[in-house]
């Protein structure tokens, strides 16, 4: 009996291969997007962990100077002598490479001295004045530098023994001290030994994982959104399959198949199919992730300096989570239907019209739920804060809006029906209303896809506008120059002062503002700053106050994190403070920044000699030539403004190319959902179309009406999607962004983009409707006639 029952149930799929394809395809696509995003996240996290398991800055606490960039070697010795296990690091520039000097004896790490067989280079080789570089970095070193090629060393970095590094840099101090994780039981108090140092915990220094969390949360949100859309497809397919199989189920039950066996068989059948679909989805997800990973890696490197490997691995964490979430999604969709079967009267009517009437009550419940979700979202806007709250808010808003959509569309259709003139028009609206329950899930997924597109397009375009303006503001100098040592820095500054319109030295030091590690910048107030900088808010006469050492400017991140704004005093080193006279937008940087005039900066960093300069000049090419000829400055020491801008914009574009790709996929999934709903509905609707055909409408007319209906519905959904998309954008810009990055982006509207998106949506819907309409036009008259013959 079981075999016969199973055969009967499976025959449904044989007769409706398209539905089988819908189910498998929908679930596979949903799983693919989810698994793909998870795969990217897992790969990135694995890379962070790999980095952290070595001598990552994020792994060890460090002792850094409270002011300045220098720690005396005596302080280091005093710390070691009082029980502080710290390892010295010195950093500086060697030619065009970053020179890092370490003490291999005291540096922390997973040292395995038992691998004594691996004796390679003696310490004497390290102590001999040579640096370790990769082959590609070697040309960046000054001529005559002794080096040893080590392929594993990162590009641009020259590694050396601390003593060698000190000699090469002409210094006898240290830059920072790495604090070893296991400290002795007995140890002096830090302030007693080194009052000028502060502990920077590993979380603060550069916790890449933390910095990039928001980025991954964004990706995850997109994955979930795609999955939600995919689940709509699954849900609707399962629903339709059950509606179509009601007759069969009724027959089987009438023939005496026990309910328990039937339910079990259906559950096994559907879960097996779901497993198959999820498996396909995981494979697709792997492909999506493999395609996107290089861009994600480039983005993370550009934004945060995080190194992600470009190669994707099959990790249990994501493929398993993909499988599980697909199975759970199917099980949830299935359980409702099985419950229906269990409670279905043996001889229940199978008339399709019944579901419309029945769903009247369901619609009211749905509307109530939708309103509740929207109210929650509204309340959260007012009271909640935090990144997770932002995403919960987004979730409530999207779910609420999606649930409300069929109700709204129903109302619109009824109103339209009231104004309809003529029988065909009236029938058109009535028939559309009748189809609404079957289409509502597809419409919801279309709504989500379109609004996500509007929201993200708004965010990206707003960000682009702001970012470009910001670059213009910050990168006003036409040429940037970097030099190696203090002496040539002074020489070059003198030279530039004579030759150019304005010289802007970059004075930068580390400080701490109310516990937040921040950068302190000394600026030379002049025409460039006065003309180019745009403040979020400023006091009158901002630049005069800054120039007179009467005020400081802070960036938005700092202002928001420590809760200071224009008019408040910002604490500076040495217990001093200055009133904030301006808050400036600062995009793409997680650190707090304080800007003071050069003279104030010099009080805290008396020995600082700037080695980077921005130069205002009308003729970049000739200035470069002069610098090269008169001072022997290498070409790589000078960077044109255009190059930096191009690079920055490239980083930015990559950031959002991932988002854009996911967006397109979401829209594709939604169109697919629409296509499948229409296809499955088409079969069901033959009995309803037959009488209309019999009354004289040609099959061509019917097909045309199908297309018009699809466009009308898509148009309607699009209209609903605009406010939803804008609300989404607002939450992303004004709430999620502030939480994730610490700055608020001004929101700009892009009606042209939205219009284009509307056209895409209607085209997608038309394409989705084209095939069902074409099939309708080709329905043999005999099939339509059969409707009357097979009076049900």
């Amino acid at each position: 009996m079981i075999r016969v029952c199973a055969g009967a149930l499976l025959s449904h799929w044989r007769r409706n291969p398209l539905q089988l394809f819908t189910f498998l395809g929908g679930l596979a696509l949903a799983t693919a997007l989810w698994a793909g995003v998870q795969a990217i996240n897992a790969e990135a996290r694995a890379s962070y962990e790999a980095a952290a398991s070595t001598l990552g800055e994020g792994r060890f606490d460090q002792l850094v100077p409270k002011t300045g960039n220098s720690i005396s070697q005596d302080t280091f010795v005093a710390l070691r002598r009082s029980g502080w296990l710290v390892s010295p690091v010195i950093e500086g520039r060697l030619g065009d490479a970053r020179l890092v000097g370490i003490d291999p004896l005291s540096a922390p790490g997973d040292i395995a001295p038992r691998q004594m067989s691996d004796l390679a280079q003696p310490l004497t080789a390290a102590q001999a004045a040579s640096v370790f570089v990769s082959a590609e970095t070697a040309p960046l070193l000054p001529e005559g530098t002794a080096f040893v090629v080590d392929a594993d060393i990162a590009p641009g970095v020259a590694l050396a023994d601390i003593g060698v590094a000190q000699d090469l840099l002409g210094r006898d101090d240290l830059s920072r001290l790495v604090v070893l994780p296991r400290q002795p039981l007995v140890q002096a108090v830090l302030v007693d030994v080194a009052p000028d140092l502060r502990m920077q915990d590993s979380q603060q220094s550069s916790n890449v994982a933390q910095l990039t969390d928001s980025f991954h949360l964004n990706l995850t949100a997109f994955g979930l959104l795609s999955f939600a859309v995919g689940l709509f497809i699954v849900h609707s397919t399962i629903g339709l399959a059950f509606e179509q199989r009601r007759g069969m189920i009724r027959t089987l039950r009438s023939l005496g198949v026990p309910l328990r066996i039937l339910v079990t068989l259906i559950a096994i059948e559907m879960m097996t199919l779901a497993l198959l679909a999820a498996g396909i989805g995981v494979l697709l997800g792997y492909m999506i992730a493999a395609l996107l990973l290089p861009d994600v890696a480039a983005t993370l490197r550009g934004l945060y300096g995080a190194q992600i490997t470009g190669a994707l691995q099959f990790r249990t964490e994501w493929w398993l989570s993909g499988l599980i979430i697909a199975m759970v999604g199917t099980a949830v969709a299935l359980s409702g239907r099985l419950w229906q079967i269990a409670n279905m009267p043996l001889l229940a009517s199978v008339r399709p019209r019944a579901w419309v009437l029945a769903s009247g009550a369901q619609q009211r419940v749905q509307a109530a739920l939708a309103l509740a979700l929207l109210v929650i979202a509204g309340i959260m806007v007012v009271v909640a804060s935090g990144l997770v709250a932002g995403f919960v808010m987004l979730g409530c808003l999207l779910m609420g809006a999606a649930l409300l959509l069929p109700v709204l569309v129903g109302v619109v259709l009824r109103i339209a029906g009231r104004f309809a003139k003529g029988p065909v028009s009236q029938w058109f609206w009535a028939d559309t209303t009748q189809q609404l329950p079957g289409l509502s899930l597809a419409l919801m997924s279309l709504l989500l896809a379109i609004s996500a597109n509007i929201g993200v397009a708004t965010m990206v375009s707003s960000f682009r506008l702001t970012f470009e303006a910001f670059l213009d503001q910050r990168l006003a100098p036409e040429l940037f120059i970097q030099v190696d040592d203090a002496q040539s820095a002074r020489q070059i500054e003198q030279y530039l002062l004579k030759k150019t319109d304005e010289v802007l030295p970059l004075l930068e030091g580390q400080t701490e503002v109310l516990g937040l590690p921040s950068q302190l910048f000394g600026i030379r107030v002049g025409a460039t700053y006065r003309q180019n900088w745009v403040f979020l808010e400023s006091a009158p006469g901002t630049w005069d106050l800054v120039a007179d050492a009467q005020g400081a400017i802070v960036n938005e991140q700092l202002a928001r994190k420590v809760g200071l704004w224009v008019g408040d005093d910002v604490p500076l080193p040495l217990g001093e403070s200055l009133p904030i006279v301006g808050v400036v937008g600062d995009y793409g940087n997680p650190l707090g920044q304080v800007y003071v005039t050069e003279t104030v900066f010099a009080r805290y960093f008396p020995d600082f000699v700037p080695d980077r300069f921005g130069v205002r000049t009308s003729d970049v090419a000739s200035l470069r030539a002069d610098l090269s000829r008169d001072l022997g400055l290498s070409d790589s020491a000078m960077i044109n403004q255009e190059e930096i801008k191009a690079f920055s914009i490239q980083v930015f574009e990559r950031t959002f190319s991932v988002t854009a790709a996911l967006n397109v996929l979401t829209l594709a999934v939604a169109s697919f959902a629409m296509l499948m709903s229409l296809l499955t509905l088409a079969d069901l609707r033959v009995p309803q179309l037959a009488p209309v055909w019999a009354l004289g409408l040609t099959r061509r007319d019917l097909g045309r009406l199908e297309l018009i209906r699809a466009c009308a519905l898509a148009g309607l959904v699009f209209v609903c999607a605009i406010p939803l998309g804008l609300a989404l954008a607002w939450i992303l810009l004004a709430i999620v962004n502030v939480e994730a990055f610490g700055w608020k982006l001004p929101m700009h509207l892009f009606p042209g983009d939205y219009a284009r998106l509307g056209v895409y949506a209607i085209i997608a819907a038309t394409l989705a409707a084209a095939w069902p309409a074409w099939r309708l036009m080709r329905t043999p008259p005999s099939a339509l006639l059969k409707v009357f013959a097979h009076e049900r």
Partner: protein
Amino acid sequence: MSDNMNVILTMKLLLCALLLPFAAMAQGFAGLGTGADGFAVPEPDPTFAFPADHGPHPEYRIEWWYLTANLTGPDGTPYGLQWTLFRSALEPKEDAGWKSPQIWFAHAAVTTPSKHFATERFARGGVGIAGVQAAPFRAWIDEWALEGPDFDTLTMRAGGPDFAYDMTLDAQGPLVFHGADGFSVKSESGQASYYYSQPFYDIQGTLKLPEGDIPVTGTAWLDREWSSQPLADNQSGWDWFSLSFDDGAKMMGFQLRQTDGSDYTSSTWIAPNGTTTSFGDGAFAAEPLKTASVQGRDIPTSWQVTLPQKDVDVTVRALNDDSWMGLSIPYWEGPVTVTGSHSGTGYLEMTGYQ
């Protein structure tokens, strides 16, 4: 981040290289047995000059200040402690600053009947975080120190993440010289070291252990040894005993295990007044009585030790079988009790057990 990978890689290479002399010594002295590579070589009939010779000898490859103590707590519980500073030179010279080729290592340990705490330190000479000065005597690495106005009156401290100690030492007898007036031969082919001891310290102080502070008193034994070609290349490890008998006499004996299964032994009998009698190869003997599995290795933790010339026939048992120094260079070192013809306490060091 990948530059950090390389930091580690390079560190490993460097550390391997500079641990080489000590590693070779601890694991059987392979490879360094005969060649002295420009380092000075111990010569017979040495004349020591004190206090200068309490200080370092950078022209020799390897040197140590090696202190062990048998202690008793207020309730009679026996404890042991170790404080050792090693110098290992990459070149036979001293340079200022980070260029110094003198590498310093230190080990500290506390042994209780049930626990063993051990930790280590590394430092480069030249910058001030580690070194030894003869007078006033000062041997230090990081916050660990063994120092005092002279070699007879010292304070000593060391510690790790889970233990620490702070002790004072007071010598009750003279320095004693091993081998021929401090020239200690280590193999038939003539490898030797300079070797003298101060085995007569009274020691007292406080052990800081997880269970709390424990005041202790006892006796301590300080070994001074330096060399450049410590042992022959057919020697795989050693077993070293320093025993203090209840009657005031003391004995140092070691056997160097050779790859052919034979041993090379040497010993010094120290009378209560400090006069010494040295015995060459074959007088002293040590036979394992039982082994214990320690960190996956079979380690003899009970020995039958004999020196017939002095009627010594004793059983030496580890206070704690698990006195394993699980450090960069692993070995066994811990306090022992002595029973048999003589009774007392002492210390046992065993290296080269694979």
